[in-house]
């Protein structure tokens, strides 16, 4: 495979005396959609922040030289004291024509002159995605971009992300909760619970015992109608422990 856009090698983050991330390695190649999944507190957002240089971490993070990143954070605070229209917001990051095209591409051209504070959650999610793609990034980093998007909108948005990958040829690193839609669009799934539990092709991951342990046989069954035994279980701390026989 070609040289990765970005590669985290054995990245660890400690805070408050515990491991938030324990020697995690993950890489994104051009035109590849890599999805991070895992329960709450499994370190998905922390891993993204470490990779983006927003948080100090041990280990090695290699970027392809000159890599252009488009980032959609998990939380985006719209301070009501800041008067700003969507067009003005996008213009801070990209030329006006590119911004307009991006807005149209994600299907919200009509909000161009609306104030940021007046957007619905779904509109805001699309505006943030438009902002991230307007600069023609080599790598899109999306941290739960579906916050505030209803279920039907979610599937459409994931589909859109896959289309954008095809059009722009960029790599995508995505964090998500929603297993169903993720499975439909991701090339590779990394299942995280402070360490990498399992990773690989979406369909293979669903069959992985570690995935079943983490999400329960039912979720896995819904996704793959397939479940079997696993070699380790997860203590509430997130540490792994061997499965007791019996």
């Amino acid at each position: 495979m070609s040289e990765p856009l970005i590669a985290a090698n054995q990245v660890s983050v400690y805070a408050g005396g515990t491991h938030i991330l324990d020697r995690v390695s993950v890489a994104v190649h051009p035109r590849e959609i890599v999805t991070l999944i895992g329960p709450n507190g499994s370190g998905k957002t922390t891993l993204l922040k470490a990779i983006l240089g927003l948080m100090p971490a041990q280990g090695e993070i290699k970027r392809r030289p000159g890599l252009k990143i488009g980032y959609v954070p998990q939380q985006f605070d719209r301070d009501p004291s800041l008067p700003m229209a969507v067009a003005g917001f996008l213009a801070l990051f990209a030329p006006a024509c590119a911004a307009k095209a991006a807005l149209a591409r994600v299907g919200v051209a009509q909000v161009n002159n609306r104030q940021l504070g007046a957007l619905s959650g779904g509109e805001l999610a699309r505006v943030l995605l438009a902002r991230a793609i307007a600069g023609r990034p080599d790598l899109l980093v999306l941290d739960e971009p579906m916050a505030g998007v209803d279920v039907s909108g979610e599937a459409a948005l994931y589909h859109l992300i896959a289309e954008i990958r095809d059009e722009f040829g960029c790599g995508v690193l995505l964090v998500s909760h929603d297993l169903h839609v993720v499975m439909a669009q991701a090339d590779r799934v990394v299942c995280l619970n402070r360490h990498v539990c399992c990773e690989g092709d979406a369909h293979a991951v669903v069959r992985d015992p570690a995935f079943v342990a983490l999400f329960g046989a039912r979720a896995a069954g819904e996704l793959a109608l397939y479940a079997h035994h696993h070699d380790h279980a997860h203590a509430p701390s997130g540490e792994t422990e061997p499965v007791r026989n019996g």
Partner: protein
Amino acid sequence: MGAAAGPIGCFVLWRRMAYLGESVAHMGLLGAGLGLLIGINVLVGTAALAIVAALVMARAGDRIIPAGTFVGIVGHMGLALGFILLATMETVRADLLGYLFGDVLALSASDVAVIAAASLGVLAVTALLWRPLLRAAVGGDIATAEGHGGRWVQAAFLVLVALLVAFGLKVVGALLIVALLIIPPAAARPFARTPEAMAVIAAAAGALAAPLGLAAAYATDAPAGPCIVLAAGAIFAASALGSQLGRIFAKFR
């Protein structure tokens, strides 16, 4: 000074950093005291300590003590220590209130020139860095993650705030300077549809508050610094009232 406080104050408002400004002002008082103690210009001492305090406090906070609490602790320590330091100096003891509430009328012509020049400088740098400053204010981590220079912009912003606070200390005092940072932008907000408009209106409101306050002080023989702050407050009240009335009229149209 009032005009420069407007635009920078907008960023203080947008980033919800009024409390940091307050604490920087408190540290400024300590800076003034130290400046007098070691015999350098008071303005230089104030500005230097305010800048250091702003840069240090912006990185404050850990997992159990929230950043705001930490900033408050450091700021109030600075205020207490600065007050004690100034009170022990025979020559300034009578002038203590001037440091807390400002003493415009005691400014020398050269002080006024320095403050005016510094304010113009802050205004010019703000205009020059407008886009990166705004990007950092609205985008937060986005600017840093995508390599738009989030960190140095943050540092530059803190230095601008600290400079303004330090120079404003002589005018309206350590306890009131933050008022000049947050009131004009708040007054401008209802009438602005873009950040640029808000900054310009805030600058105008700040510039208007100073002569209004001075005139009121002259007429009533009241202390000038608090009068300027009250004038800013009156402008805010007028703005709030005006925008409410505007909304009511719009309904009936």
